[in-house]
């Protein structure tokens, strides 16, 4: 199976570190040693590597269906405590019995299908309270473009047929713009969450953060905590100091960090954090454009200022 170089994707790497930030706060709710992290880590198991590095007390289980990817995972095993399971996620979910165990799930999908929402709904109905669930979905409106006439005609119909049950308006045409499309996806996740945990049950899905980014392919991701309804305010308090929190299903935040050299980053370091006009300050500090024009350059540098703490270092290594 061919895989894109997930480990070299900047925005995805930022998102991964933002998850770490959220997991760190779960310590305020429960002991991290009581958690098990479940992920669909792909061949390189980057998320597991990170979790092990920062939270060695968290137990880890990777779920992978493809035989060769599974073999590559065995090859890349970052630690001896990670349990690799070769299973289809659906069958894993059918067997998953948390009892009182706390879980952190990352449904890290590369595509977008109704089955993803079904998985999410099934999972939300199964995890024990104070478990964290993160879902990542492909967000490419062009997937639903009618290739023949470049309109959303039959593509829109196909979208409605696939996702009607979780769309806020099942008769609507999906938007063409990236930002509007990810907002629709977030609404769909919210509808699915409310279907899985309706007001009649004591548990609910409290969102914590939501982002969208594009490392060639557009992606949307949302993290939340399954908690008791009467404890939702406490959960919100736990994440109140999370920099990029989204506790109210507000619009997701864009991650679009620029590619900067290590030298540039070290140069900018002394100007950070930057409380106001970050884009302009960093642009002045660099003294040149890093994108098409001033406006875009400052927007990208503002992104850098926002996410610099989560920005990974990719180094050339000599084997």
């Amino acid at each position, binding site marked *: 199976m061919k895989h894109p170089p997930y480990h070299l994707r900047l925005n995805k790497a930022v998102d991964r570190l933002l998850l770490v930030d959220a997991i760190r706060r779960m310590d305020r709710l429960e002991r991290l040693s009581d958690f098990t992290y479940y992920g669909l880590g792909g061949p390189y198991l980057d998320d597991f590597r990170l979790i092990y590095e920062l939270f060695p007390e968290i137990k880890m289980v990777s779920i992978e269906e493809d035989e060769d990817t599974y073999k590559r995972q065995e090859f890349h095993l970052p630690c001896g405590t990670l349990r690799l399971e070769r299973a289809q996620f659906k069958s894993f979910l059918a067997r998953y019995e948390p009892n009182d165990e706390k879980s952190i799930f990352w449904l890290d999908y590369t595509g977008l299908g*109704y089955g993803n929402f079904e998985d999410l709904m099934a999972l939300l109905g199964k995890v024990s309270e104070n478990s964290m669930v993160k879902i990542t979905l492909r967000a490419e409106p062009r997937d639903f473009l009618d290739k023949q006439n470049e309109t959303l005609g039959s593509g829109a119909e196909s979208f409605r047929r696939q996702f009607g049950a979780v769309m806020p308006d*099942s008769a609507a045409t999906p938007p063409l713009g990236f930002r509007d499309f990810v907002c629709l996806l977030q609404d769909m996740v919210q509808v699915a969450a*409310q279907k899985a945990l309706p007001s009649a049950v004591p548990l609910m899905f409290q969102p914590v953060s939501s982002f969208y980014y594009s490392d060639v392919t557009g992606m949307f991701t949302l993290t939340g905590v399954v908690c008791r309804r009467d404890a939702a305010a406490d959960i919100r308090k736990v994440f109140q100091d999370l920099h990029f929190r989204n506790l109210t299903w507000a619009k997701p935040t864009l991650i679009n960090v620029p590619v900067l050299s290590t030298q540039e980053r070290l140069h900018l370091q002394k100007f950070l954090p930057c409380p106001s006009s970050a884009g302009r300050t960093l642009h002045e500090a660099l003294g040149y454009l890093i994108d098409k024009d001033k406006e875009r350059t400052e927007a990208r540098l503002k992104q850098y200022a926002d996410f610099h703490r989560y920005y990974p270092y990719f180094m050339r290594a000599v084997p």
Partner: protein
Amino acid sequence: MGKNKQIQYEPVDASPVKSFFVTMLTRDIRLEEAILDLLDNCVDGILRSKKRNGGKKPYEGFKAEIEFKKDSFMISDNCGGIPWSLHSYAFRMGRASDRPADTPGTVGVYGIGMKRALFKMGRDCLISTQNEEHRYDVEIKPEWIDDEKTWEIPVTAARRSMNEDGTTIVIGNLYPGIAARFSVDAKEFESELRRTVSTHYAFIIDKGFEVIINNKAVAPRPVSLIFATGDRKAKRIRPFIFKSRTDDGVDVFLAVGFTRPMPTEEEIATEQEEVRYSSIDAGWTVLCNDRAVLYCDRSELTGWGEAGVPRYHTQFIGISGIVEFRCDDASKLPTTTTKRGIDAASPLYLQIRNKMREGMGIFIDYTNKWKGRVEEAKKHIEGERAIPFDEVKAKAGKLSFRSTTRTVPKGDQYKPELPLPKKLEPRKRRISFVKDVEDVECVAEYLFDGRDADPSSVGERCFDLILKEARR
């Protein structure tokens, strides 16, 4: 007690208990359906209205606006209001026998819909209505609900006048479960309500009625059928159509056909592993006086899985049918009290269901005959358009119908002649096999320089190449 002493029995009390209406009857209906009942009243109002249009858009200019919040529900319409002449009937629990005959085409039969909807949601309700010179408010308070003896509800002159004749209902003091659906579950509830309205009211919205939920209009999702144009005698994809008028005045129009091309084998296989479509148009939609009482049903209720018809399966994903019952007297329509279900014991419906099976059988047979040759079958649909039910009815006028006077039900029917696959010559054999998708893509890239080549073309090309080599 002495042997000879006669026990005196007193008459038993069989009077209705208010709580039965308020807390019991409301359990029979989903919240979304209760709101549809309120919309039904709006449409019945249009039918009574003198402003009603003729032609294809009889409901144009009429609208209902729905708004819900944590603490209230409101529906407001401009559909003519409740005539003062109906005040003694409209608010009664049940339909009084002396109620004047209704306007043709309305669906209110049992006199329960509006009240059940109000009691389903909350304990405070204000109904303000304006019909011609009459403008009045009817207010239901919690004290009235709790008082088992009082059945009269006070009527007062309306506090506010309206721009147009119509009715506004505001419900407050919501039950906790309802308030939670309007707030905690608001996103999901609005999605579900929109979906229900866009399907069950598709035909009415298509005819001009506007339903607005939380300031956004609902777009209809009518069921459409492929109806080939061109040479009417040629074997093309057209629906089976049956129409009839019963002795007691119920008009029936039935059409069943394809709404999309047949699914590929891959699509069928994938669907078994995971649900790919969350909403599909396959199955039967039943309309009673324009309202959909069933939408895309695929159960025994509509003839699937009995009397020679197989159970619904993904291979029949393209088969869709619509039956329309229309009658001036709504009590003759085969619906349940919720108006969102079929009275399965209705003799009329049972007869029509035989025709539904007959029509469905033609397309099931077609699907079976083309099984494994989907790409060929698709060619018969390419370029053809699926048209909404009203257009099907209009186009049906140009088809040649045959009368079925000796069968039950009597009527006229059009049986399409569908294109049939050529029989494989005896010297030919079909080869079909399943391979891993990665492997198929790998071979496709090797043979066609692209991974998305059609799997059957990949297989055929492989065979041709080996054949060429074998013959050397």
